[in-house]
């Protein structure tokens, strides 16, 4: 089974600073691979470990996709090769643009049976790219996949719903978005990290693939929620009196 796993390089959320005017500063932010995408990578690697085949990591974006640390990071997690499409127009792209660019990139990725995505990107989390990509490629598409078992020309997948587990057989080729609890992602070992530097990585540009023109969505503002002023009323102790005082304070506030 040849598997493509899609991943997005995002700013590390712990380094994002909220400025006094509620705008966000990414100045100090390190790059990382979206954490939900790591579940897709792990799922792909586990499938080829069980059924044979190869995993190729696939990403589209701006300059960040050519970052050597990111290449090493993705390849240390098991994929045999990396394919990226780099173009300034793809930096900070919306879901539709990203899905179209991925669909274009898939055409350069050779034979494939299955494409895996995470449940959403770590930064925008629109949960759209997987389903749109499947639609663009015209293949069976599912999201919310919490288990995958390889079969003959198909995979059996589970989707954990509100109060039941749906089991479906999906013909290949297909596009699946996996949940964050489908697996526990592996921590790359020293040898995997050292080996990652030797794996092939290809960077394509607008000359190699047909990139979408224009964007469907335009971001008009990106603001952190306003900080609520805390009242800083502390009630200490667990006596009945104190609990009554605590409840009184809450009631007064709610009135």
């Amino acid at each position: 089974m040849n598997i493509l796993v899609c991943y997005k390089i995002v700013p590390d959320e712990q380094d994002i600073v909220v400025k006094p005017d509620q705008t966000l500063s990414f100045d100090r932010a390190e790059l990382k691979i979206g954490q939900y995408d790591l579940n897709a990578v792990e799922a792909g690697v586990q499938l080829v470990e069980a059924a044979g085949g190869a995993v190729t990591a696939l990403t589209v974006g701006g300059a960040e996709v050519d970052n050597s640390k990111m290449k090493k990071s993705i390849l240390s997690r098991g994929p045999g090769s990396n394919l990226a499409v780099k173009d300034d127009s793809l930096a900070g792209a919306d879901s539709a643009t990203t899905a179209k660019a991925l669909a274009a990139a898939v055409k350069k990725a050779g034979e494939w049976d299955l494409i895996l995505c995470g449940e959403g990107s770590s930064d925008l989390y629109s949960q759209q790219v997987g389903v749109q990509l499947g639609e663009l490629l015209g293949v069976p598409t599912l999201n919310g996949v919490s288990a995958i078992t390889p079969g003959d020309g198909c995979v059996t997948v589970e989707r954990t719903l509100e109060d039941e587990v749906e089991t479906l057989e999906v013909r290949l080729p297909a596009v699946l978005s996996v949940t964050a609890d489908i697996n526990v992602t592996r921590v790359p070992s020293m040898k995997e990290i050292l080996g990652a530097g030797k794996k092939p990585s290809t960077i394509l540009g607008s000359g190699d693939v047909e990139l979408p023109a224009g964007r469907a969505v335009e971001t008009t503002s990106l603001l952190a929620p306003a900080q609520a002023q805390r009242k800083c009323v502390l009630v200490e102790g667990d006596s009945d009196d104190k609990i009554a005082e605590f409840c009184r304070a809450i009631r007064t506030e709610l009135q």
Partner: protein
Amino acid sequence: MAEDRFDAIIVGGGLAGIAAAYRLAQEGLEVLVVERGNTCGSKNMTGGRLYTHTLEKLIPDLLQRAPLERRIVKERFSLLTPSSGTTIEVDSAKLGGLYANSYSVLRAPFDRWLADEAEAAGVMFVCGVLVDDLIIRDGRVCGIIAGEEEMEADVVILAEGVNAQLAQKAGLREELQPDQVEVGAKEVLSLDQAVLEDRFHLAPGEGIAWIIRGEDAFGPGANGFLYTNKDTISLGVVTEIGKIPSAQHSMVELVDLLKEHPVVAPLIAGSKTVEYSAHLLPCGQGAILPRLCGDGVLLAGDAAGLAINLGYVVRGMDLAVESGLLCAETVLKCHETGDFSRDALSSYETAIQNSFIPRDMERCGSYAAQLGNKALYDDPAKLIDVLTAVMQG
């Protein structure tokens, strides 16, 4: 080189480790640095002042290329009471020689830059991996163990910082006792660059080192420091572990108390905390360990006890770099003969003894002691001499 065999493995991608690896790679050795943080610099902390003399030996155009924050041109020293304080200012030009060039730095960008330089010189980095143990055969260190994996090398350099667990496993250190370490906590506060320069009377690119002797003014036994960066301020406290009842929580409070102190509050007015960190550091003027090497193993930087801590002035970064470089010189010599026994490696101990490190460690302790000498305050010239010596740590 076999897949899992290196000429040298360095544990710890701090300044000591990167400097050692960089120097070895320059001479064509196959070296691996294993760092537990996800990037070099992510787990590292410092007050903020780097004397660049040792790194300039490794990178001659360091001052032009490195992400240094501000060149330190002014030294201030404050003595606090709970409600007020007095401040003395000395011109940094007083510090000459090795100490002529010093800059404020932030470890996250600085260490990462240095690691990238080293990587470009051929060093291999594995980040996000904790080394758990050493491979020791017949008393000789032969490599490292991380999880299920082993990796071998002719020599292992332990540059793992102050809490040197592996150095203990190699039999070179005792377990750290609470009275041998202090704890430091620091906030990085962002402030508009123009406001910062105006407030501290600094020209662009110029910075200030401000040492705050608190004693009990803002927390039991706590002292503080302030360094100006490009558009941030590093403000921190150092105190003895024994003096804080519950380590994490009250370190945060100590920094808050310092921030509220009437001498400090106006300096940071309008700033916003963008980073908080806490770290252990060795106590007092530190003591170089009796043994800095064993069969197949060397210690560098904080792991070797090479740091000066006068409570308010802490200095270890240039010492870490120097020891890393001296480790590398010894390894290069041993690489020629193929002999990495303790005897062969002990030329490193001699090199450390002959370096500026023990000299400075001793001198600082004696100057710090003089600060308590009342007669000193009747003699301004002498006072300035002692203060500049103390500032330089």
